[in-house]
Structure formats: structure tokens, C-alpha cells
């Protein structure tokens, strides 16, 4: 029984405000002033969550954020399976992001697909001093020789590239010409650019625009006969197979998915996307840029959707169907009806075990809002949420469609704040990332990794919701949490203690 259930909204709001004041006391004055703008208690009816976002993280506070390289190589480009992505610079970045995001794909790795491989220029001191362009050119030659079935190359810049003045565009152009117009994409996603992963997404989106779309010959014959029902899945990274359990629903309702971005995606799918009749956008944060571009340049409408939990899935299927004729609208209803028994059975089984449990989230991309509906489908309540790298438009969507009155909101939360908030709010579950997982486990709080699905998944779609429900039950109702307190140290539940 968490505190949230025993208090009125007014009490919760007062407590959350106090909490915010309390955590701010730890900071030097200048920092407290800056952090205060990122913490708030949500007021129902407001158009956003009342926090500033997408601003620089403060030095020394233990931000959870990553960098532009992580946004480009780690998120947007990395999953494109038939291209080789060079981590261009020193060895570390590529090493730490090697196969860590579970972007599932089908292919013969090392021969025609390359997602779970680490290609790097492994910069040495001489490369810093003399520049790495010659080395990059040679790397491309070696790739062509050893991996002849690759369908393209991207250059994912690490910090030094922009600092030493390398011209990766010139190298890419020259090599593309040499290899008969091969797609070679230079990406300026150096880690020091911007304030988080977010700029990396944007830079990667722009590079697809400039180096993939703009290179497509306008008179090139289509690789397939278009249909009025062609759609592209944008912003699903196929973590644990998410895009697959989403794609199947779109196809079942009568649509034809001509591309997946970028989980299990291929260069051919990227190139085909301007032929779509509608782009359906799951991760708004990381791929709204290219969706907007396609709308402007090719007149393709786009529609945000949410495939977490039956309520949002049904809502999204109908919303997507509204762009098409009755055949598809009927298809959407048919799909919703088809899965109704499964959803009923999943909720009947798990909801009684999860009813009234509270959750605090801190994740990236779309998840700080998108998963709220799935928790609510299970009778759970999200009492705190925040974005690692959200922008104001994310907080607007959160306020208008997702969070309840009194929800604690924390943007770019610091390690200290998050621990303190959890210690005081005492949620039944925390959903965040690998860096947070063990911190809360030590405190005796059930935890699920909501970036990698804790190596489970998929969570998207109807099939995914069954897994989501199972996993949340597994986390919260594991008998292990009852063991956290030694019996000779009597306490019914361990007091959550954050590190001071």
C-alpha cells in the first residue's frame, strides 16, 4: 500500500511541492535556481507540465542523459541493418553502444546485415594530430573488400571529428562516386553537440533527408506497385521485436507496411518511404523531424500513435484508420475485436495483482507518457514521470493526454533528485534505465528497465501487452522484496534510503 493511495490530491500536491523544495536545498544557489525550473507538480488543465526542458544539463549533478552520438548511432542509424555504421573516432563510444539496445533484426550478421557489430576507426594519437580523413577513406575501401554485400555506409562522428576539422563529407562524396553512387552518409553527431541524445536524433534525421532522400533519382522506377494502403512505421526501434508486434496489427487491418524506421529497417525501406500514403509515428521525439519534412516535401501526412496497452492501441488503430476508407476502418474494428478476448484474459489475470499500485517513471523518448495508459489498463497509477531529453512539445502532449493532477514532474532528473523522490513517494515500481536499476533495487523497490524492457519484450501491440503485464507482475510481486529486511531488524517493509 503506497502513500499515494492514502492521500487526497491536495495532500499529494502539497507533499510533492515540499519534496521539490527539499531536494533543491542540496544545491549551490545558482544550481538550485536552474534546477527549480525543471521540477514541478502537475496542475490538471494546464497545457504543459510547467517545466523547462531541452536545456543544458548542469555539470557535476549526475545527469542520466547521453549525447548526440548516442542519438544518431545508438538510436536512429544503428538499427538500419544492411548498412555499415562506422563509429568514427576513438574506440569507446562504439564499444559501449555495441549491441546494447536490442534492435532486433533478421539477417546473416557480418554478411548481409551488420547491426550487432562494432565498426570503428579506433582513433590513435596520430589520427588526432594529422586528421582522420585518409584513414576514413581507407576504412571504406576495406569495408567494400571484406563486406561486399553491404548496401551503404554511415559515418557516425565522435567528439574529436568536429574538433580537428576533418572533412567527412568530402570523403563520403568521393567514395560514393568511386563506388558507383553507393549511399555513404556522413553524420555530424559529435557528442558535444546539443544537450542530450535529442540533437543527435535531429542530425540523423537531417542526414537521411540530405544523403538518402535527396539522392533518389526522381525518375527511378518504383521497386513495387504502390497501393492506396501503403504506410511506413516511423520511430519504432524494434526493441525486443516491438515493431514486429506493431506491424502485424497494421497489416491485419488491411494496411501495407512498406518501411520500418529504423528497427529491422533497410536502406531500401528508407528510400521507399516517400511513396507512403501515411507515416505512422511512434517515437515522436526522435523522428518527428523527418516526418515533418516528408509532409512538406512529398505531402505525406503523419499521425502519432501509441501501441502500449489495449486502450491506447484501440484509440491509435482508429486514429490511423481515420486516414483511410471504410475498408480500413472496418479492419481496425475487426482487429480490436479479434484481440479483445486476449486482452480481457490478460487483464483478468494480472489486474487483480496490480490494482492500485503506483509507478514512477524516468525514461527517454516517448515512454514517459506513452506507457502511462498501459499501466492504467492494469489498474496502476503513474505518480511521477519525466523525460531524459524531452522538449516542450513532449510535455504538452503529456499534460494534455496522459498525466493526472498532482503528478510529480522532473525533467532531466539528477541522480540525487530521483533517489530522494522515490525515497519519499515510495512507489511500488520504478521504471527507468540500467543506470538506475540497481540503485532502486538496493533500496528494495521493484524495478523494470523501460529502455530495454529488461531483456524481455516486445511490449508494443496486443501481443506485447501480455508480456508487459506479466513483467510488471513479476517485478512487483516477486517474493524477493519481502526478504530485503533481515528479520532481526524488525520492519514490515524496508525503509527506502537514498544515498546522502
Amino acid at each position: 500500500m503506497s502513500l499515494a493511495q492514502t492521500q487526497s490530491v491536495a495532500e499529494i500536491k502539497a507533499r510533492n511541492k515540499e519534496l521539490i523544495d527539499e531536494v533543491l536545498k542540496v544545491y549551490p544557489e545558482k544550481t538550485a535556481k536552474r534546477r527549480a525550473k525543471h521540477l514541478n507538480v502537475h496542475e490538471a488543465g494546464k497545457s504543459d507540465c510547467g517545466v523547462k526542458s531541452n536545456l543544458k544539463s548542469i555539470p557535476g549533478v549526475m545527469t542520466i542523459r547521453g549525447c548526440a552520438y548516442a542519438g544518431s548511432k545508438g538510436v536512429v542509424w544503428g538499427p538500419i541493418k544492411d548498412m555499415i555504421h562506422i563509429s568514427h573516432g576513438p574506440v569507446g563510444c562504439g564499444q559501449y553502444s555495441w549491441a546494447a539496445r536490442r534492435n532486433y533484426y533478421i539477417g546473416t550478421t557480418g554478411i548481409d546485415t551488420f547491426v550487432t557489430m562494432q565498426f570503428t576507426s579506433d582513433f590513435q594519437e596520430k589520427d588526432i594530430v594529422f586528421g582522420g580523413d585518409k584513414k576514413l577513406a581507407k576504412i571504406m575501401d576495406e569495408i567494400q573488400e571484406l563486406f561486399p554485400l553491404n548496401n551503404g555506409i554511415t559515418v557516425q562522428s565522435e567528439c574529436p571529428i568536429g574538433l580537428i576539422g576533418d572533412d567527412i563529407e568530402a570523403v563520403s562524396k568521393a567514395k560514393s562516386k568511386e563506388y558507383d553512387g553507393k549511399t555513404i552518409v556522413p553524420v555530424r553527431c559529435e557528442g558535444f553537440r546539443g544537450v542530450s541524445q535529442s540533437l543527435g536524433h535531429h542530425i540523423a534525421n537531417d542526414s537521411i533527408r540530405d544523403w538518402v532522400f535527396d539522392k533518389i533519382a526522381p525518375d527511378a522506377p518504383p521497386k513495387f506497385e504502390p497501393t492506396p494502403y501503403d504506410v511506413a512505421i516511423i520511430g519504432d526501434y524494434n526493441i525486443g521485436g516491438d515493431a514486429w508486434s506493431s506491424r502485424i496489427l497494421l497489416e491485419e487491418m488491411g494496411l501495407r507496411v512498406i518501411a520500418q524506421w529504423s528497427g529491422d529497417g533497410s536502406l531500401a525501406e528508407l528510400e521507399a518511404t516517400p511513396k507512403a500514403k501515411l507515416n505512422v509515428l511512434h517515437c515522436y521525439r526522435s523522428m518527428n523531424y523527418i516526418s515533418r519534412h516528408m509532409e512538406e516535401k512529398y505531402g505525406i501526412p503523419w499521425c502519432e500513435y501509441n501501441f502500449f496497452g489495449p486502450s491506447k492501441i484501440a484509440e491509435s488503430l482508429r486514429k490511423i484508420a481515420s486516414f483511410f476508407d471504410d475498408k480500413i476502418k472496418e479492419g481496425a474494428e475487426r482487429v480490436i475485436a479479434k484481440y479483445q478476448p486476449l486482452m480481457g484474459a490478460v487483464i483478468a489475470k494480472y489486474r487483480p495483482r496490480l490494482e492500485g499500485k503506483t509507478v514512477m517513471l524516468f525514461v527517454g523518448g516517448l515512454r514517459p507518457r506513452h506507457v502511462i495508459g498501459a499501466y492504467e489498463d492494469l489498474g496502476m497509477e503513474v505518480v511521477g514521470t519525466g523525460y531524459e531529453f524531452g522538449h516542450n512539445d513532449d510535455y504538452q502532449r503529456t499534460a494534455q493526454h496522459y498525466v493526472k493532477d498532482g503528478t510529480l514532474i522532473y525533467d532531466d532528473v539528477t541522480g540525487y533528485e530521483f533517489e530522494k523522490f522515490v525515497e519519499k513517494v515510495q512507489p511500488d515500481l520504478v521504471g527507468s534505465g540500467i543506470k538506475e536499476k540497481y540503485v532502486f533495487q538496493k533500496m528494495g523497490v521493484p524495478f523494470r528497465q523501460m529502455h530495454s524492457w529488461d531483456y524481455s519484450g516486445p511490449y508494443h501491440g496486443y501481443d506485447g501487452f501480455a508480456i508487459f503485464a506479466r513483467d510488471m507482475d513479476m517485478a512487483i510481486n516477486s517474493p524477493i522484496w519481502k526478504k530485503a529486511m533481515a528479520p532481526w531488524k524488525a520492519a514490515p517493509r524496508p525503509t527506502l534510503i537514498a544515498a546522502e
Partner: protein
Amino acid sequence: MTQNADHVLDHFELFRGPEYQQMLANKKKMFENPRDPAEVERVREWAKTPEYREKNFAREALTVNPAKACQPLGAVFAAVGFEGTIPFVHGSQGCVAYYRSHLSRHFKEPSSCVSSSMTEDAAVFGGLNNMIDGLANTHSMYKPKMIAVSTTCMAEVIGDDLNAFIKTAKEKGSVPAEYDVPFAHTPAFVGSHVTGYDNALKGILDHFWDGKAGTAPKLERQPNEKINIIGGFDGYTVGNTREIKRILKLMGIEHTIIADNSDVFDTPTDGEFRMYDGGTTLEEAANAIHAKATISMQHYSTEKTLPFIADHGQETVSFHHPVGVSATDEFIMALSRISGKEIPEELARERGRLVDAMADSSAHIHGKKFAIYGDPDLCLGLAAFLLELGAEPTHVLATNGSKAWAEEVQKVFDSSPFGANCHVYPGKDLWHMRSLLFTEPVDFLIGNTYGKYLERDTGTPLIRIGFPIFDRHHHHRYPVWGYQGGMNVLVWILDKIFDEIDKNTIVPAKTDYSFDIIR
């Protein structure tokens, strides 16, 4: 429909259902512009050939699947080995997210570390303000006893001067003037995580021993009877450090473990998160100057630190990640010689038990061929152990191995008739190893989690020993050093060997005549 509430299927089984299989086949055929399967097969086979190996080994610029990480990771690993210490990495912030994730994935533990979060403006004007604000914030929030500073490649490329920056930050009141902020430049484009460990450790000792960056008198060494132990960058630090302490206690040797991160990477779940736990106290770090000698368990983790210590008048001895009987003998005898303490009978019995265990199992290992990759010292330790078992460490590869390391490995080969057909590969990566496994097959592969791709592609069974291990749990809690550690390594190797034997004899009425219950 495949999914059902009574028996929820996740990614392991869900996508094998017919609807998904059909969907994926359609996707490929219609939209992926796939290669001709015959062509894929042809290239797959070609990539196994000696011809491909030759091209692969002719690579000069491209690195594929390296077995090394960058310096700051090692710096962070060393820094958290000191009491109440938080590592502070000066540079871009994404790096710190990566180090923390990487260490957490291996140890299944929290990993605390902060960044100075430098961005474009710092790239132009330098990161002094980030240092000033960052140290102040870290000091206020996390109340560390010490902040150990290292750098990312961004700060190195623009040439930020840590010594000057920290001095200025102190003048501005970020932290008290006498507060300990040791530092090390740890450029990611030099060496590897092992180098970073070395640089950071030397930086910390230099700080305490040589006048705290000009703010205190240098320490005068007053020799005592203690022995310092440095573990080096070690994925088994939790199990190993405790095993070393047990041995030292058995022998009655007064000691200091320098950079002891065995507790911080193994905290209990009891309702409290301990950001700091255990570690070498700052007083111990300073007093380590007075020790009689310093022993490094991993030579290549202390290439700069040991000479620095030797310059202060101590005897220094280094080992190569000792695994097995003789390597442990040498370590124990060095302890005995330096301390003047006798080797207790208990250790002799432990040794005898390891020899006994190896004798029990030697028939299953003798003559088997192994490929090993990993950090330089780990490779040396494991190669020597395999030779003790009558196995052949056929391919020994370290991406961060130097020419000098290769010569050391060759010496190990030369010390045994079982080393006659073995080869060492410094500076090579796991794509090179792939060619080796295809063209000169071995029975088993020893390496970290990334070896599973080699296991999949070449069919060489993988025994997971090294760093990082992400896809198996809790191995880091077991020692691999000492006679007891040798026992663990032996069991890990044997378990895989027996699993493979069973796998090869499990087909009823075909191969199961050899499906013995006694091995």
C-alpha cells in the same frame, strides 16, 4: 493467434509463430530489396576461407569488434576503489552515461560517476566553467570524501589543463582549498581502459604522495612492514580482492589494497542504496608510500604506476593475472619472501586440492585446443593455466596487447611443449579471431560476452571469462586468483567441456551409446 494469457510468449517464442514468420518473409521479399540467397551463401562461405583471412589480416585502418574500451572507463573503475570517492569525468556527458551503463551491465550494480557536461561553447572556450560549477555541484550534492578527475577525448583534443582548472575552481570556492581532487589525463585515443586505470591510479598516488599538486609538503617515506596490492582493471574484482585479502590474512601480512572497489561493486539489497561502500581510505592511500613493497596483480594495468612507486623507494613486483598452480605459487612465494612470513600449511593444502582437482579432470582437457582473447594480463594468466592442464592455447589475442606483451606470451608458449603450435596476436580484433577460428579451428574459445557472436558463427563453444560479461550473472563474485580461483576457472572450463560432450551424444539410437552418466 500465438499469444495467450495463460502462457505468455515473449520474443523467444512469439515470433516463431506462423503469422509472424509469414509477415517477416513478406517484408523481406517485398520491401528489403534482399540479396540473392545464393549470393549471401557464397559470401558466407568465402568469409571462412584462407583467402578471406589474408584480406582480413591485411586491414590497416578498419577495426571490427575490438576487445578493448577507452581510457576513462579504467579511470572510473580505479577511482571508485577509494573510500567515499566519486569519479568526475571532464568532457562530454554522454561518455559518462556509457561508462556507468557498461559497468552496471557487468556487475549488476549501481555505478556512480559525474560529468562536467561540456557542450559546443566549452569546445570553443574550454571547459573551465564546467569544472568550476561541476566540482561545486558534485561536492554539495554527493558529499564525497574525494573527487577523482579524469578526461574524455573531447577535453583532451581541446587541451584543457586539469591542474590549472582544479586550482582555479578551488580559488573560486567550488571545493575547500585542502579538499582532495586528484586528476589524470586519460585520452581515449591512447591505449585502452587498462591504460586509463594506470593513469588514474598514478594520478591519485601522485596527489597524496607528492604534495597534492603543490599545496602540501611531499610525503617522506618511513618504511614499514606493509605490502600494497594493486588488482588492476579486473572484471572479477569482487571475488578476487576478497580472495587476496583472505590469503594475506592467512599469512598474517599487514597490507593495503590500493583502489579496493570490491565492496562498492557488491552492495547488499537491504533497503539502503550505498553510493559509496568500502574502498581504500584516503589515509591508507597516503600511507601506502611507507609500504615495504607493492605488488601488482596485472602488469599492464600498472605500467606507469609501478615505476612511480619504485621511484619512491619501494620494491615493486608485478604478475600477469595469475591463474592456476604455478602462477599462484609465484605470487604466494613473493608474498612470503617480501614479508618474511612463512607460507601456512593451509595454503599448501589448498594448492594440493587444486592439483588434485586438475588431476581428476586432466583427461578431459589434455590436448584440447583453445583460443583466448581479452586484456593482456588475463590472456597471459589463462594461457599459462591451460598449458598446466596439458591444453594448447592455440590462438591468444589482445586488441590492446603490445609487441612487448606478445613477446611475454611467446615466452609462456616456449615454456611448455604444449605451446609449440600456439600463436599470439597483438592489436588484432574479434573479426581477425573469426578468420582464425575458421581457418585454424580450435575446440573451445575463452573470452567475454562478445565471444558469443564467434560461437554462433564458427560453432566454437564459448567459455565466458573476461570483461565484460553481460549475458551471464554473478561470475564476478567468484575469484579466479589464488588456488581457489584456479578451481573456479577449472570448473567453468570443465562444465562447458561436459556440456559439449553431452550435446554430441544426445541423439537417441544414434549417438547416445556414449551418453554416459559417469565422466
